[in-house]
């Protein structure tokens, strides 16, 4: 049974979905967003705007957009303006435009059918709903890179040139596109690219002192007074800074360290709790990132994790990993994806640093790709993935 002793005052303030009232060191960017979208408070249906928020993992893109959306919605509400801020993570829908737009429609029509309708039809429904409600919407497409990857230029073109098909009618729909890497835009054709590149807000990585401020804010909200000493915050900030200035990583370490303190029934979070927390966060693949993976990405990774857990080998050939993946798919009643798709998964995990792939030349059988799991303990990875898949199954 869990102990009643705790260093936390309100641990929900460290949850990945919690958006604080104030975002330290993002004030300028928030003001900029308000400037871009201030027309919504003055003449909501006369204009539409598209803004890109770009930055590395943990630079506060999602938090900034959501805080801005909540602030604008509250201000619009005070002025009697019908405005909705809707935030959708494209990766949750495997980059599928129709499913992403469906989520926006369900804000007004919760039981709108989710299958059998294309992106164009869903977009047209969204506009009809907004017209009927006389409302304006900012639709934020988080992890927009995955949508570009899946749908390509056509989808972007449809979204960005929307208003041209509605000449003379109220403008209802604005967009915020959130991306890690602006390189993804380069894959688009010229016309789609040019409509996207007008307003870009780049979020720079946090410095160590900035991370200290962010963590201190969360400590005040989440922990009992005196439960987290200054040097502990400093240590976590240092770690987060080394992780490319990733504030989300720092907050996750802070929460886990608090949990270790509770287990030890300590009155405060000790540096040793931080070290234990860091050792137990799956390196290179934190819970938040794991949650964002598609079902088959998780199944493939689970197969690789199981292989390395059961075999004391440093490498697995891609063909062998694919066989194991088929077994995992059977377990989860899923049809395995083909070789090309699996190859894409390998490329993706390699780019994240989770897997390493290399071409091995065998003397007799030509070239083959072999994979290794360089930094993540297979047992940890298997545990995290199994938990995540079971959670998805129950949902």
């Amino acid at each position, binding site marked *: 049974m869990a102990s009643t002793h705790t260093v936390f005052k309100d641990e929900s303030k460290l949850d990945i979905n919690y958006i604080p009232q104030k975002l330290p060191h993002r004030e300028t960017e928030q003001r900029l967003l308000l400037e871009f979208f201030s027309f919504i408070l003055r003449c909501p249906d006369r204009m539409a705007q598209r803004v890109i928020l770009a930055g590395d993992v943990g630079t506060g893109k999602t938090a900034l957009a959501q805080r801005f959306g909540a602030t604008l919605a509250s201000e619009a509400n005070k002025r009697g303006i019908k405005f909705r801020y809707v935030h959708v993570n494209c990766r949750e829908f495997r980059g599928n435009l129709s499913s992403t737009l469906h989520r926006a429609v369900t804000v007004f*029509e919760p*039981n709108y*059918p989710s299958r059998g*309708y294309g992106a164009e039809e869903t977009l047209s429904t969204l506009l*009809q709903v907004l017209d*009927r409600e006389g409302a304006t919407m900012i639709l934020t497409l988080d992890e927009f890179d995955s949508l570009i990857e899946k749908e390509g230029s056509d989808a972007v073109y449809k979204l960005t040139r929307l208003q041209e098909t509605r000449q003379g009618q109220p403008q209802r729909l604005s967009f915020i596109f959130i991306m890690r890497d602006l390189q993804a835009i380069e894959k688009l054709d010229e016309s789609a690219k040019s409509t996207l590149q007008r307003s870009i807000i780049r979020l720079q990585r946090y410095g160590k002192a900035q991370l200290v401020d962010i963590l201190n804010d969360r400590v005040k909200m989440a922990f009992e007074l005196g439960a987290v000493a200054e040097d502990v915050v400093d240590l976590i900030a240092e770690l987060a800074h080394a992780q490319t200035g990733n504030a989300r990583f720092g907050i996750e370490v802070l929460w886990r360290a608090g949990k270790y303190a509770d287990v030890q029934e300590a009155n405060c979070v000790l540096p040793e709790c931080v070290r234990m927390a860091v050792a137990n966060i799956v390196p290179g693949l934190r819970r938040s990132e794991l949650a964002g993976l598609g079902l088959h990405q998780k199944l493939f990774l689970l197969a690789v994790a199981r292989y390395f857990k059961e075999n004391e080998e440093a490498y697995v050939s891609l063909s062998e990993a694919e066989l194991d993946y088929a077994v995992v798919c059977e377990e989860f009643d899923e049809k395995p994806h083909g070789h090309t798709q699996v190859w894409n998964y390998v490329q993706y995990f390699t780019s994240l640093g989770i897997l390493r792939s290399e071409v091995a030349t065998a003397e007799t059988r030509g070239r083959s790709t072999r994979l290794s799991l360089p930094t993540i303990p297979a047992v940890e990875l298997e545990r995290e993935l199994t938990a995540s898949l079971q959670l998805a199954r129950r949902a």
Partner: protein
Amino acid sequence: MELEEVFSSKPRIKILKILYTLSSLNVSDIAKRIKMNYASTAEHLELLEAEGILEERKYGRIRMYRFKEGSERAQAVAGLIQAWEEK
């Protein structure tokens, strides 16, 4: 249509209960839930719409039904279902 005619149909009562619970649904979804074919379900829905209890919202090919906003009849039916279901 007379009151007894409107409410003498089991599928119509089922439709009203479902829409009371789920707020709005498209025709196919309602048909599936009351285990009836699309055409008959659509007929019942059109009748309830004609009686001023339901309203249809059309989005392209999709027809969503719900209790009619501001309709006294819709309010009365919703009140009856509430009283009945929460007894």
